[in-house]
């Protein structure tokens, strides 16, 4: 079984995307053997009221009868009015299984009181918080797009302030982030997961590859698969799985076991 932690449906304003509908994404998932995928709404990132995008996502999934393939996450801006009501509604009425935050698009700090309050609430509701480090690489950004990535110092503080909440950190230099967050992660009850979408499994400059450095610092029980479909080709992820040298047991954890545990599937 393969579960993907990071996919999107919706319109991207800065470059033409293919397969950014439920039908398109499902076709790519079938091509790559991805059984289930965490999905969020790109529209929600850009609408003033993220809840409009969250609703569109659920409708799109339901209209395509794909509830068994997608694990929807709610995009919430804690600096916008009624964020608490929206988040609770997403979980209790729309069946959303996670919270996804974009501080570098919605222009707030993860350490602001509203952010901390929202993330604590997620922890109380047993809802994991997904923090993508970026959507696209800022080196190639559109001139109207954000120039910022996730700020790891803020994540470190947030982890300490919200010790019960589970986190997933994706699409960034996970090996370096895991190294930075190693100490604080050990001192808390909530779990921290990382994907390996930006890491190389080949050792080219040092005896330990970036992927193996991540395994050392995060532990194999905290590594998950994320494709960033439909923005990126998925094949590099499978090159990584092919050459990572994982045992059958560890491969099972990375491809589905760890997320099954997180989502209690």
């Amino acid at each position, binding site marked *: 079984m393969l579960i993907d932690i990071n996919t999107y449906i919706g319109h991207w304003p800065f470059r033409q995307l293919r*397969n950014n509908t439920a039908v398109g994404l499902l076709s790519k998932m079938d091509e790559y*053997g991805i059984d289930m995928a965490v999905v969020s709404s790109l529209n929600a990132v850009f609408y003033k009221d993220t809840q409009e995008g969250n609703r569109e996502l659920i409708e799109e999934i339901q209209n395509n009868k794909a509830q068994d393939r997608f694990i929807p996450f709610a995009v919430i801006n804690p600096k916008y009015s009624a964020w608490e009501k929206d988040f609770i509604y997403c979980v209790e009425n729309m069946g959303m299984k996670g919270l996804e935050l974009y501080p570098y698009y919605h222009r707030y700090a993860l350490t602001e009181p509203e952010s901390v309050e929202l993330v604590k609430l997620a922890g109380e509701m047993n809802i994991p918080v997904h923090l993508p480090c970026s959507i696209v690489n800022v080196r*190639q*950004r559109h001139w109207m797009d954000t120039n910022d990535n996730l700020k790891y110092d803020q994540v470190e503080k947030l982890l300490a302030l919200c010790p019960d909440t589970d986190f997933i950190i994706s699409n960034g230099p996970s090996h370096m982030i895991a190294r930075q967050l190693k100490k604080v992660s050990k001192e808390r009850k909530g779990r921290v997961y990382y994907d390996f979408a930006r890491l190389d499994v080949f050792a*080219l*400059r*040092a005896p330990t590859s970036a992927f193996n450095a991540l395994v050392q610092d995060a532990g194999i029980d905290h590594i998950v698969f994320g494709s960033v479909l439909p923005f990126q080709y998925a094949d590099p992820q499978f090159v990584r799985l092919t050459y990572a040298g994982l045992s059958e047991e560890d491969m099972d954890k990375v491809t589905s076991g760890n997320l099954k545990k997180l989502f209690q599937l």
Partner: protein
Amino acid sequence: MIDYTKKLREEKMKLFKDNKVVNWHEHVWDDDDGKFDAQQSDLLVESARRAYMDVLVCSLPVSGGSPDPDVIRRKNNIIAEAVDRHPNIIKGMAFVNPGYSREAVAEIERCVNELGMIGIKLYNQYFISDPVLHPVIEKCIELDIPILEHAGKQMSLPVDQPFISDGTHFAKVAEKYPEAVIIMAHIGGGGDWQWSLKAISDCPNIYTDISGSVYDEGIIEQTVSYLGAERVLFGTDGSFSQGIGKILAANISEKDKIEILNNTRFSRYLERGAY
């Protein structure tokens, strides 16, 4: 449901296993003391063998400031050591700083004629269209060797590489020197790749390599669409998983993939390099 990891391992990687693979953009490095890091070169070669790469074209550029000729000679000597250590797989490219015009031309001659290197690598010291490069480009035309230039349309701020060349700079130099063979480096690591592809699409002597950590869906298809596979080279620049994965994923013909993996227009350079 398909097991894509198994499919990739048992079927898709045959593309690499069954065809010659020339990686036109890699590096070997010096250690903290400025000496050849033999262990690093061994790791690189071992990884290349695991991934069925047959040739690694390597350079050792200085990425900051304006390095002087003595520093550059030391860097190029390290490349020569790497070639000596792995003669069956590593080919060398000489790095020069065009700002030291006379010394740069002499260093190119030394590296090609004495050390057996097969091309030159330029970094971001000057735009490739800057007239200061003319003696260097003319020497490369005379010796019939390719120029690999660090490139990118950098969109992130602040701009930390003010003289990095994007596609428009390559288009200018193509007009001035249509007989030069120039590779606009790492289409997957140079910022706005669509900008640069559009800028060089009508310049037949400007090539690109696919290296870099970026593997945006569609990047290889658009590169081939703008340039044709015959103007595209395989490369990794420190990102093996990404480089292999994006060529496997691309929705282009098998013939085009094989041409990119071993661009036949560049075959003659690989036949050189023997001492």
